[in-house]
């Protein structure tokens, strides 16, 4: 027997769960940036809590909390450029907002209104994908179009650990590999797919190794360390922009909340597991680090929370004031021009 191919998967972390540096932080990340990441993570958490509360009072419907995964959302958002295209699944509301989707659009979407995905900014970004993994081939197409048109942008798509079992994910990575499409696949390994734990999802030790099937590069990063996420995603994007082909990055994190507001996670996982996971909280970790370096104070924290709550409350008020969508809208936007055979249906809807 001789060895014809060999592979290894590497893991990166900068701040451990106590907020201690396990290796020097990347030189290009300034203290100001760190504080910004911190603010943005707190923003994500505050928004998330608000969204859950809105669901509980019937103002929006099913919502997928991102609590515990703030570092992922923030790290991706900061590493991406404006003209890159983001194709997220449903648990990246934070990244979407940080990229420019408005709070009102976000609430409209979870409030069951397509106007929420008409995005006034981020015009090229895809809307939230519910149908698991199906956005991954879209990302390959977006990336290939950018490559063929000579644009130096990258398509970034996110999936959960569960979604990594689905055929589309592999077909997409394989096709991207063959085409050399500038696409970054981000696998958010939060350990659970609703009630199915990672070990029942795949026998693969890491999600990163799934890229080996497609012959593309990959690595694993601590998804609760915003520095590692920013660094890992940033390095991957740089490689891709240099034409080094597609890449898969696995972000190891944990879903601290329920799967969605329709779920009750205590049915299938222990409190103990969850409280252990809280020790790896990405926000507390960075706060500890920043506080230790006197870059963040209690006062700042309180001011920040007040500001954020105000901003979000204002958006919620505006959202609630928006009038209901027209029923006829559901056929009017189906085709560029309404085909004659749909006119009768449009009329019925218009009368509703």
């Amino acid at each position, binding site marked *: 027997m001789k060895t014809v191919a060999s592979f290894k998967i590497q893991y990166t972390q900068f701040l451990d769960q106590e907020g201690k540096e396990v290796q020097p932080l990347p030189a290009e990340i300034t203290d100001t940036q760190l504080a910004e990441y911190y603010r943005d993570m707190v923003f994500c958490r505050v928004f998330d809590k608000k969204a859950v509360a809105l669901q509980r009072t019937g103002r929006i*419907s*099913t919502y997928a909390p991102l609590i515990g995964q703030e570092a992922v959302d923030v790290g991706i958002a900061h590493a991406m450029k404006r003209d890159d295209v983001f194709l997220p699944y*449903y648990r990246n509301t934070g990244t979407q907002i940080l990229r420019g989707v408005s709070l009102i659009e976000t609430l409209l*979407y979870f*409030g*069951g*209104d*397509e106007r929420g995905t008409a995005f006034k900014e981020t015009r090229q970004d895809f809307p939230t994908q*519910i*149908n*698991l*993994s199906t956005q991954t081939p879209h990302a390959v197409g977006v990336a290939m179009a950018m490559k063929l048109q000579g644009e130096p942008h990258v398509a970034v798509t996110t999936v959960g650990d*569960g*979604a990594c*079992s*689905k*055929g*589309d994910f592999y077909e997409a990575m394989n096709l991207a590999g063959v085409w050399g499409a500038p696409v970054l696949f981000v696998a958010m390994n939060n350990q659970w*797919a*609703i*009630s*199915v734990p990672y070990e*029942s*999802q*795949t026998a693969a030790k890491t999600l990163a190794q799934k890229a080996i099937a497609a012959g593309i590069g990959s690595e694993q990063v601590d998804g609760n360390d915003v520095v590692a996420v920013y660094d890992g995603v940033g390095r991957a994007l740089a490689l891709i922009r240099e034409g080094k082909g597609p890449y898969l990055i696995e972000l190891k994190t944990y879903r601290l909340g329920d799967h969605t507001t*329709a*779920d009750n996670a205590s*049915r*299938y996982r222990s409190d103990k597991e969850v409280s252990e996971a809280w020790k790896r909280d990405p926000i507390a970790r960075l706060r500890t680090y920043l506080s230790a370096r006197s870059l963040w104070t209690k006062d700042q924290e309180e001011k920040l929370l007040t500001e954020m709550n105000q901003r979000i409350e204002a958006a919620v008020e505006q959202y609630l004031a928006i009038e*209901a*969508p027209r*029923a006829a*809208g*559901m*056929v009017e936007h*189906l085709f560029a021009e309404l085909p004659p055979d*749909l006119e009768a*249906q449009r009329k*019925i*809807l218009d009368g*509703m």
Partner: protein
Amino acid sequence: MSVTLVQAVTMALARAMEQDDRVLLLGQDIGVNGGVFRATDGLFKKFGDRRVLDTPISESAIIGSSIGMAAQGLRPVAEIQFMGFLYAGLDQLLSHAGRLRSRTRGRLSCPMVIRTPFGGGIRAPEHHADSLESILAHSPGIRVVIPSSPSRAYGLLLSAIQDPDPVVFMEPIRLYRGSKEPVNDDGGGLPLDTCFVLREGRDVTLVTWGNCVIEVSEAADQLEEEGISAEIIDVASISRLDMDTIFGSVERTGRCVIVHEAALTAGFGAEIAARLADEGLLSLRAPVKRVGGFDTAYPLYRLENHYLPTTHRILEACRAVLDFE
């Protein structure tokens, strides 16, 4: 014991698993979690992890592996979490499950059931409200069965599991917990190729299935107040279709309105109307009207009640056929 439709499903599954140890369940979140609608609640505990198998997110492999298990003599009952996620498994279902028996002249077969909730009206996210019965009915070698009450869910599901061929069992999402009725857990099945007449009537035949039984019944109530007697037929077995019951009814009433929530065009209502336009033509005293979902993407939930056939739209159609010259 009075139970909801989803509880009746659980009862039927438990009964089938007790009666026949070849029966096993597979699907996403059906184990410890008991399914996102609790349709398999308690079964993992009762039957263990060799009878109740959680699967990865792989709709195609869920159906594909069920085919292999069925061909080897097991009786898999797979859950697809929502019918909108069945598209990814259609190749396995339509190209393979439905054809294995005929392509091997009966040497191998697929006694398997795919259970899946379908339809809208519960404020669920995108892709959670699709109704694919017409697509399935067009494809050879599978049965498509849709209960519309707890007792029919119990009896039809038991028969589906016992059937020697693949059955897609579509569970009406709005009826899951809509009402309760006593269901006798006696292991008794219901036939897979007959309609159910839910209400007898003389003036107009209302044909429907699944969730829409709610609005159709409301419409019939309203007509009754106006002195019009509507017959309600629940097709239940979309495939194999029992046209005799429908022909018989329309022969008496001369008028027919078909209601389903799937998109109107090429929906299964078209097949029934087409059969009436052929063999039933002489019975028709008025045009056959169909009330369906609009021919558009199922909207996010703020508009879903406009998308779905409303009692109002059903009544309008009834009036059109009743007023016809």
